[in-house]
């Protein structure tokens, strides 16, 4: 039976708002303000504890190290490198960067990579990996992560929600409990890399992840920011948090730095770096600057569709910048450069250059299936993407994918499917004529 979060039995607003916390030890009432925490050494003895119904329970509960931590350490013993992806600010691209990092590591088929999504209120990782509709498989040894490909696994609270749009209205202590279960019950097995995506801010989730992983050791944290001061303000706080919590900072990545207009190729700054941007901040705080990644509207599209940006748009300047960042992350972790990325990051490219798409070959020597499709089907990137998705998946999956996205109603999805059939026939026709080599399309993983 897959682990399932029962929808809270809501009869009144109060029930929703006072969903009581579960913590160790078992409390009989919600924690008071200024509670030191039931697991802390001051539990039951602090000034704030006076008058709290839990005081006796907290005071008499056994103190000392949490007995679950050795279990967690054992579970994670098979993971060689653990990386946290942090940022004080929301919306800078943590989840996007986590997926891109994971895809990059997974491009080397010798690596086994996992992503853990600890953002309980806004779990985006399953959608970005294209596995939103999956559920967790429970085995006798633990929970099995959802495998996106042979060597890339995902774990997120999204898989446990009965309804995708359900709000997770939990207080901090309950969220901590879930993160602990992720660490204790998930069977990660032996892995090369575990990327931990975190929510914005510096709160319960970050404190728990840090305390649970302290013993098993984290290689470090990668901080993501955008160039403007509003973001840097929050990232400074995150750096302060890392220093206070003793987390090693692998470096700072500046995302959305610069935008290249697809029409006139003029570079403009959407998020102006008035105080020197990420580079200056890294210098001031004496942390490594891992690189600046420009804004590409196709990243957003790839994430919405659950596709890998690297695979679909390898010729984008953003891609090159990202590869540099990934290499720098590897360097900071002390991993050999050739082990980080696949030796040939786009294995299908070699076969394509020998393909018979003459016009595509003239324009760019490395033509991916998407680039090919775009060439023959038209310049509308979305059309071409659909065509690629369609050729890879079967029709039923496409309708499901289409209704997942907010941009389609059920009727529109059916209409898109009909249009898709037309595209499918067009692609089949081109294959028969030898303009598109069917082999190449099927080759992509």
């Amino acid at each position, binding site marked *: 039976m897959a682990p399932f979060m029962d929808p809270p039995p809501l009869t009144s*607003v109060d029930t*929703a708002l006072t969903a009581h916390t579960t913590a160790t030890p078992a409390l009989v009432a919600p924690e008071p*303000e*200024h*509670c030191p925490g039931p697991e802390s050494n001051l539990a039951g003895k602090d000034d704030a504890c006076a008058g709290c119904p839990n005081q006796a329970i907290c005071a008499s509960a056994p103190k000392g190290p949490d007995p679950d931590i050795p279990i967690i350490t054992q579970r994670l013993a098979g993971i060689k490198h653990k990386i946290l992806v942090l940022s*004080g*600010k*929301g*919306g*800078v691209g943590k*989840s996007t960067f986590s997926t891109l990092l994971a895809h990059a590591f997974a491009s080397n088929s010798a690596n086994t990579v996992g992503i853990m999504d600890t953002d309980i*209120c*806004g779990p*985006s990782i399953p*959608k*970005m990996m294209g596995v939103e509709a999956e559920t967790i498989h429970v085995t006798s040894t633990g929970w099995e992560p959802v495998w996106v490909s042979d060597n890339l696994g995902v774990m997120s609270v999204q898989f446990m929600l009965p309804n*995708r*749009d*359900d*709000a*997770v*209205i939990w*207080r*901090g*202590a309950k969220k901590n409990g879930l993160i602990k279960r992720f660490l204790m019950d998930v069977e990660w097995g032996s892995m090369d890399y575990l990327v931990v995506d975190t*929510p*914005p*801010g*510096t*709160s319960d989730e970050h*404190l728990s992840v840090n305390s649970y992983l302290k013993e098993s050791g984290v290689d470090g944290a990668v901080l993501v920011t955008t160039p*403007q*001061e*509003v973001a840097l*303000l*929050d990232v400074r*706080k*995150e*750096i*302060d*948090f890392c220093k206070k919590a003793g987390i090693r900072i692998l470096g700072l990545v500046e995302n959305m730095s610069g*935008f290249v*207009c*697809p*029409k*006139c190729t*003029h570079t*403009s*700054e*959407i998020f*102006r770096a*008035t105080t020197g941007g990420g580079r200056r901040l890294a210098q001031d705080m004496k942390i490594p600057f891992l690189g600046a990644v420009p*804004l590409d*509207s196709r990243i*957003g599209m790839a*994430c*919405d569709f659950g596709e890998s940006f690297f695979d679909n748009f390898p010729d984008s300047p953003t891609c090159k910048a990202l590869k540099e960042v990934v290499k720098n992350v590897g360097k900071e972790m002390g991993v050999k450069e050739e082990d980080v990325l696949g030796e040939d990051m786009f294995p299908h490219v070699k076969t394509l250059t020998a393909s018979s798409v003459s016009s595509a070959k003239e324009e760019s020597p490395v033509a991916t299936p998407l680039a090919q499709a775009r060439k023959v089907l038209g310049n509308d990137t979305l059309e071409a993407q659909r065509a690629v998705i369609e050729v890879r998946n079967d029709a039923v999956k496409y309708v499901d994918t289409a209704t*997942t996205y*907010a*941009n389609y109603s059920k009727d529109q999805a059916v209409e898109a499917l009909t249009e898709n059939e037309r595209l499918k026939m067009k692609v089949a026709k081109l294959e028969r004529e030898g303009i598109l080599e069917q082999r190449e399309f099927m080759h992509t993983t």
Partner: protein
Amino acid sequence: MSLKDVKHIALVLSGKGGVGKSSVTTQLALTLSLHGYSVGVLDVDLTGPSIPRFFGVEKEKVRQAPGGWIPVPVHEQQTESQNGNGHAVGSGHGSLHCMSLGFLLANRGDAVVWRGPKKTAMVRQFLSDVHWGTLDYLLIDTPPGTSDEHISLVETLLKEATSEQMAGAVIVTTPQAISISDVKKEINFCRKTGVQILGVIENMAGFVCPNCSECTNVFSKGGGRVMAQEFEVPFLGSVPIDPMFIRLIEEGRRPVYPEGTVVDGQAIATNAESEELDTGLLVDKYTACSLHPLFDGMVKELITTIER
């Protein structure tokens, strides 16, 4: 009890981070102020308080009075003023005050690493221990997610404020599907807790290249409107990315646009006559921003809905 003289309270919510809640709150506050209302802004984002920076009052300190804190003034009430030539140099506007944890931090780089109960206590204090005084509108800027701050905010408001005072929530999103899926959760949160949804604002919908005026949809398009239809909530409008607004907030410089800029059918005229372009109040400089007419329309619609 300190909220008793506040006429209307509106929350600005979004499940997703980085969609522009603080930007939207700032602009709504400035626009409401330009309509002559007295406005207060409460920043409940405890771990990442951005409102002081948006209003340019980062260096101010909160003053204490018997019984509570006094919110930091951004600008006082002012009637329309004119210079010698008869040109209006200051727009008439209502007073604007704000309150944020940012003012209470010793160092702007200090991390606020608090667990849930302490955050809950802080939110309660902000609502009950601040002398808001008489306000027409109190806007509350929230952090992303559906967590302790939101739960305690709604809890405290249900206790302290009457249902006539609670105007509802404005939801902010960006057009792409990733944001939409998080924002849907926020809408469900509002439904569960009985907070009325005043409308959805789709932010960062398009970027106009300053060189060739080609509008690129950097974060996809259309998602906000479709979601509003799906959940049967009003759709207030789409707001593009305007680098001039960002420049106004970051550097304090008055927005200037190249000749012939048209936004939403209205030509933006850069008044070359103003000598003091970069001095003056934020609210006056904001009137030159291309986003101002968009927010003007949205605020008018909101006022009609709220005061019905």
